């Protein structure tokens, strides 16, 4: 591997496979996320479409925001924030691993969505969180494909994942399982699945599962399109259509920060 950032044309799954075989360390950026690898294993994944680990922990009340930021401040430069949270007694190793794996697989699903194009690989780049529980690349890829198939088995309408959602006219006060009920309560004709997940401090994929089940039960449907500018489907994607304006802005910001 050269020290310079390598432009990475090709599909992200293919490139991840190569990087795993090379036992590479660095960050691979796709259109919708970033994979951090260490010695060919996935140590962290981020995506603008799924809540970050810090948000999952602090917004649920599992960890005080001050505790999270203190750990970032103390151990971020050494890339040992995860370790710091455990060593300082703020989280058990088990809680950190569960939360981290939850966030990792959630972000990976979205980082591989869209057209799955790898944009760039930066060798040697490590995430400030540090290694918590590295996962083989093959496991991450297989799980992402499995998740896509799972959603389609529940209700094969990908529009549920991206469009603002509304309650159907027959959606009365149904008795729902707790998680589904909490997601349903936030369906208001304006929020998208990602916004509902964020409001609940839940992982986005797990929210998609509940929303697709609600759609399958006829309780929730994509809201009729507003007479606003049309959404352009990504050619060949046919599934995810995450290009909300704020997402594009976030992505530009992310790119700018990375370039620093």
């Amino acid at each position, binding site marked *: 591997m050269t020290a310079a950032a390598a432009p990475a044309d090709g599909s992200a799954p293919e490139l991840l496979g190569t990087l795993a075989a090379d036992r590479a360390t660095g960050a691979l950026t796709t259109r919708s996320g970033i994979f951090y690898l260490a010695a060919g294993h996935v140590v962290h994944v981020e995506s603008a479409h799924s809540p970050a680990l810090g948000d*999952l*922990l602090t917004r*649920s*009340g*599992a960890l005080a925001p001050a505790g999270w930021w203190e750990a970032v401040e103390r151990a971020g430069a050494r890339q040992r924030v995860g370790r710091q949270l*455990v060593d300082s*007694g703020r989280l*058990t*190793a*088990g*809680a*950190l*691993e*569960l*939360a981290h*794996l*939850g966030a990792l*697989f959630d972000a990976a699903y979205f980082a591989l969505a869209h057209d799955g194009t790898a944009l760039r690989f930066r060798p040697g780049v490590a995430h400030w969180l540090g290694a918590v*529980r590295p996962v083989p690349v093959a496991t991450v890829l297989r*799980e992402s494909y*499995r*998740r896509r198939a*799972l959603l389609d088995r529940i209700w094969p309408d990908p529009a549920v994942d991206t469009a603002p959602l509304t309650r159907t006219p027959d959606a009365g006060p149904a*008795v*729902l*399982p*707790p*998680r*589904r*009920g*909490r997601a349903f*309560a936030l369906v208001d004709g304006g929020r998208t699945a990602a916004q509902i997940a964020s409001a*609940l*401090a*839940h*992982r986005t*994929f*797990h929210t998609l*599962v509940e929303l697709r089940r609600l759609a399958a039960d006829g309780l929730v449907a994509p809201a009729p399109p507003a007479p606003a500018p049309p959404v352009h489907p990504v050619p060949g994607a046919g599934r995810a259509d995450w290009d909300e304006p704020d997402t594009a802005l976030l992505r530009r910001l992310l790119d700018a920060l990375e370039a620093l």
Partner: protein
Amino acid sequence: MPGIDESLLEAMRLPGARGALVVDWISGLALGAVGEAPGGDVEATAAETAELARLAMESGALAPAHAGQGKEPPVEDLILTTADAFHLLRFVVTTFDSTVFLFLSLDRADGNLALARIRLAEMADRMVLG
């Protein structure tokens, strides 16, 4: 303060233990595995036990949600008994969004179901609470 692997290894020290997993019951993903999965396939075991766990968790008759407000899951554990095994699922309660359970498969001749049930509950708590 044990992590996933330490918790699974501890579960495997119970008499008659054959295999232990940590599984996400919404995605069906195994987050950790030690020992032998029933049928020899960790991924299949994870997916199938997740489906069982979900049905139990969403059973309005057996485990009604308390108006959907409590964070506590309505089910604590599940026991499935076959001719030669006890299979035990224990839900792990976390403040953050996790949806996981500990799964332990015991040899029916050597296993002690009552003991395993108590220990697994303790392990599930210790893994996330310290």
